[in-house]
């Protein structure tokens, strides 16, 4: 009984803090329609800042609280809305999810940048009034901190309910979601209300962060603290992001469940108790999604978005795929082994990103845990897809195919409960799956026995995955594996483009635009979503298997949910509608960021006096993916769209294209023969790509015109200066002004105008 009471009361306290975090989510979601994935990161930042002010600088608690909760947190929320979230109106659900995710990743790297993750003395975060200020309630010893936390939760619950029901500003906040334009026509100021609500949401996140850090008693780690508040998502889902009373119930259930596990699942008897406890919020999130009622199908009016993707033709796709293989082959000949390995890693990541192009770019659904499917695939291959041992071990083709099939089935199981719901819920289901895999599956490192069968899922915490051997081809060497990965990527990309051009692909596009219209046409939206999700999971699984084979051995850090988020973020930045967007994402994440950081670090060690500057730049680069991610609201179609548009000019002019290719081959040949080193290769290539097109374009244009016997055109403002003004020029100007239909009485134009004004119409 004593145990029960103790853990019930503690569960209520933890539930209370979950509620505070979840209510912040509800507040921002109801007013701006944006699910704030950064909620956990804001809580984490606040906890760190509070620690810095309170114990780092030794301020008194009230002053520190005032600074963090009263000033910094609301300010952060308001600035977030004004600078970033405001631009998300009229973008697709994907962008609305990706941008807050970008903010979250940015805050994470910011925190590890400012607060060294491995400090010399551990950061200690104490409870209010210290751990010894306790009272006894029902024979249970409670700290004042815990009591304060619980009562704050109740006060906040009442406060928000009052705000939303009984104050005009609160009702107006709900009105903003319905129709911001109409609220404006009523005389309200939607922008101001949304800013206010974001400030409030950030305040609640910060409060939750400061309250929960000492209760959990964990060391202050940015990732762990962020995930702690993400657990509150389950509570928010419980209330369907709308109802506060239900959110409260959900939070309390969550708090109690996690604490009862500690109480009644003895960790000394079952080794999985710890993992199970930390997975409970995600399991609960999943269960909640299962029981939520079906979402109403929506028509096109809500989905009129700013993203635009033009599908390349199948021919273009084949050419692009071939060019990619040739380019990688050429690069391979001049690269060092480490560089080849890095590039191969990048390309395997690109394959994983390709799964997102299919799912998100084509079908408009979201998977936040692509790498977790990669983890499943890797586990399958490890257990069933390896022949031979030691140095002769090879991955078999059957192993890869089996991995793909299993991933598809797991994908179906994950997606099934959320398919009836809108994209956001599927995204959250995949996130729950990803966290679950990280916390529960990848921690299964010991041997278990079930029904007499002995097995260990993630043996020893690190799996050794060999390179594949397919038929007569052995891909053990780094070179051959790079080519394998590239060819697989190219084939899959072409396959996706042809899929998009097929009947099935058109149905996907239709579903993305208007699920309601699809349903009325007799399509089964659920079956379509399910099939595309399974396909995407299979691709992610194959990509993950190849990634593991490239790395040789993998541990659970390689499949972290945050890495999945970075890949998705970068694919969206590149252009989620294109296979090239996936390549952009994988190569940027797998190679470029690493390469830039290595270069900067090397420069730092070469020029000791500037080491601090280069160190700063290294950290700055680590924030880079997040920074470009948050600008997506302004350019939701991605970088590839811009690149493709700039390539149009080159494609049109054959001589220019041939010149560029010729120059590039020459540069490559020089590097291959060792005449120039790789640094020069990079510089020359950049010059060829960036400077030749505009320069060559202008030269060629003039040449072509001269050839045809036409003088290059003189800009209109220079006519009459560079060459005499002719009758043709006058006609051209009149035509441009729309005056050619008007017979001008040249003798008296002024008089004519006056008459026109007075004449009867």
């Amino acid at each position, binding site marked *: 009984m004593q145990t029960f009471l103790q853990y019930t009361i503690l569960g209520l306290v933890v539930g209370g803090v979950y509620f505070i975090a979840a209510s912040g989510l509800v507040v921002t979601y109801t007013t701006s329609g944006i699910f704030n994935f950064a909620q956990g990161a804001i809580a984490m930042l606040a906890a760190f800042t509070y620690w810095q002010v309170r114990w780092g600088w030794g301020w008194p608690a009230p002053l520190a609280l005032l600074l963090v909760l009263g000033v910094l947190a609301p300010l952060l929320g308001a600035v977030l809305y004004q600078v970033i979230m405001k631009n998300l109106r009229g973008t697709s659900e994907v962008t609305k999810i990706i941008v807050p995710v970008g903010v979250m990743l940015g805050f994470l790297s910011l925190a590890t940048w400012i607060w060294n993750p491995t400090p010399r003395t551990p950061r200690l975060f104490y409870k209010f009034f210290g751990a010894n200020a306790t009272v006894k309630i029902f024979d249970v010893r409670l700290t004042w901190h815990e009591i304060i936390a619980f009562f704050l939760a109740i006060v906040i619950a009442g406060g928000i309910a009052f705000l939303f029901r009984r104050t*005009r500003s609160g*009702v107006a906040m*709900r009105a903003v979601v*319905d129709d911001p334009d*109409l609220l*404006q026509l*009523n005389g309200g100021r939607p922008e101001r209300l949304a800013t206010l609500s974001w400030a409030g949401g950030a305040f609640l996140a910060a409060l939750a962060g400061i309250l929960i850090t000492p209760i959990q008693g964990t060391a202050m780690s940015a990732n762990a603290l962020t995930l702690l508040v993400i657990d509150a998502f389950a509570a928010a889902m419980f209330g369907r992001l709308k109802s506060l009373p239900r959110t409260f119930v959900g939070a309390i259930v969550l708090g109690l469940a996690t604490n009862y596990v500690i109480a009644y699942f003895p960790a000394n008897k079952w080794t999985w108790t710890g993992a199970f406890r930390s997975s409970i919020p995600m399991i609960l999130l999943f269960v909640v999604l299962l029981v939520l009622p079906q979402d109403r199908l929506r028509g096109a009016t809500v989905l009129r978005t700013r993203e635009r993707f033009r599908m390349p033709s199948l021919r273009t796709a084949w050419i692009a795929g071939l060019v990619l293989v040739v380019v990688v082959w050429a690069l391979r000949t001049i690269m060092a082994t480490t560089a080849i390995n890095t590039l191969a890693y990048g390309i395997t990541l690109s394959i994983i990103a390709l799964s997102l192009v299919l799912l998100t770019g084509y079908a408009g659904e979201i998977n936040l845990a692509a790498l977790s499917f990669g983890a499943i695939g890797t586990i399958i291959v490890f257990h069933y897809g390896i022949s031979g041992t030691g140095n002769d071990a090879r991955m078999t083709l059957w192993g890869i195919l089996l991995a793909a099939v299993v991933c598809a089935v797991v994908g179906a199981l994950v997606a099934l409960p959320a398919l009836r719901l809108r994209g956001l819920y599927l995204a959250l289901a995949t996130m729950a799956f990803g966290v679950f895999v990280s916390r529960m599956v990848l921690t299964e490192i010991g041997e278990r026995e079930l029904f007499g069968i002995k097995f260990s899922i993630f043996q020893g915490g690190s799996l050794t995955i060999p390179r594949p051997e397919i038929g007569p081809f052995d891909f053990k060497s780094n070179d051959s594996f790079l080519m394998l990965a590239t060819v697989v990527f190219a084939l899959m990309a072409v396959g996706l483009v042809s899929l998009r051009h097929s009947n099935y692909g058109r149905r996907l596009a239709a579903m993305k635009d208007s699920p309601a219209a699809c349903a009325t046409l007799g399509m089964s939206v659920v079956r379509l979503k399910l099939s595309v999700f399974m396909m995407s999971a299979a691709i992610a699984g194959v990509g993950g298997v190849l990634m593991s084979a490239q790395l040789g051995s993998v541990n659970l850090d390689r499949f972290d949910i945050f890495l999945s988020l970075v890949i998705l973020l970068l694919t969206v930045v590149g252009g989620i509608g294109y296979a090239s967007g996936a390549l952009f994402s994988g190569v940027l994440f797998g190679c470029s960021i690493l390469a830039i950081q290595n270069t900067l670090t090397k420069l730092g060690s070469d020029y000791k006096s500037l080491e601090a500057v280069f160190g700063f730049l290294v950290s700055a680069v680590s924030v880079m993916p997040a920074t470009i991610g948050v600008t997506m609201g302004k350019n939701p179609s991605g970088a590839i769209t811009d690149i493709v548009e700039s390539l149009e000019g080159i494609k049109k002019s054959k001589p220019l294209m041939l010149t560029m290719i010729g120059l590039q081959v020459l540069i490559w040949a020089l590097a291959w023969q060792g005449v120039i080193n790789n640094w020069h290769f990079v510089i020359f290539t950049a010059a060829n790509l960036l400077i030749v097109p505009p320069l060559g374009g202008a030269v060629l244009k003039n040449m072509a015109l001269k050839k045809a016997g036409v003088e290059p055109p003189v800009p209109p403002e220079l006519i009459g200066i560079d060459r005499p003004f002719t009758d043709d020029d006058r006609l051209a100007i009149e035509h441009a002004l*729309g005056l050619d239909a*008007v017979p001008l009485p040249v003798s008296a134009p002024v008089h004519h105008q006056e008459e026109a004004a007075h*004449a009867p119409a």
Partner: protein
Amino acid sequence: MTIIEPSGNGHEAPRPDGPHAPPPEHTLDEPPLLQLKGIRAAYGPIEVLHGVDLVVPEGSVVALLGPNGAGKSTILKVCSGLLQPSAGEVHLAGRIVNGASADQLARLGVCTIPEGRGIFPNLTVRENLWMATMAGVPLDHVEEVAYARFPRLGERRKQLAGTMSGGEQQMLAMSRALAVNPALLLLDELSMGLAPLVVANLYEIVAQVSEEGVSILVSEQFARTVLGIAQYAAIVLHGNVTREGTPEELEDELSAAYLGS
């Protein structure tokens, strides 16, 4: 001398004293309540208004007529401040109000009932009325006016507005127009998707509001209903006001506007 009528490109100056402009007694003494001068407006790269001139004299009902996609709703959006014109001037009681946001105009006495139902579906009836008070009238007054005119709303004050019938929703929207006592009322496609009886009922209310001295600009596809209460009408075609005048003067033009062109 042959003079070619401005071809509707909108380059030309407005015609302030053409024969179909409103009678001079409104324009000479004091500025009209609402005046658009050479308004051009665009959605992204597509220009939909090519130089619209329009006058709403104090205390009158002006009807904007024209087929689908002619630009009627866009004109109302410009007037209400939801869409900023790319060129031209919007005058409200003689003051240029270009650049004023919709909420500023609302607090200055412009009440707009937008196309569709001008209500918040996830708010209760009473909360919807509460939002109307942002224009500066107390809630008690809004509720009193609304429930007196539409007793049905009084019965349903706790019901979510989105769950009511189309006619009831339009009543809720109109009660805002009744309660806030605006200087200018902008109505967009009041009849959309409603039964003829309900429409007739709604226009009775519009006429009543007009008798209280409120100037009204109303857009409507179905000309007959609105011409009964309008003093002036303007035909909008392809983003231009092609004709203005009293309803009688426009009688013949109307069929041409809808069928021809």
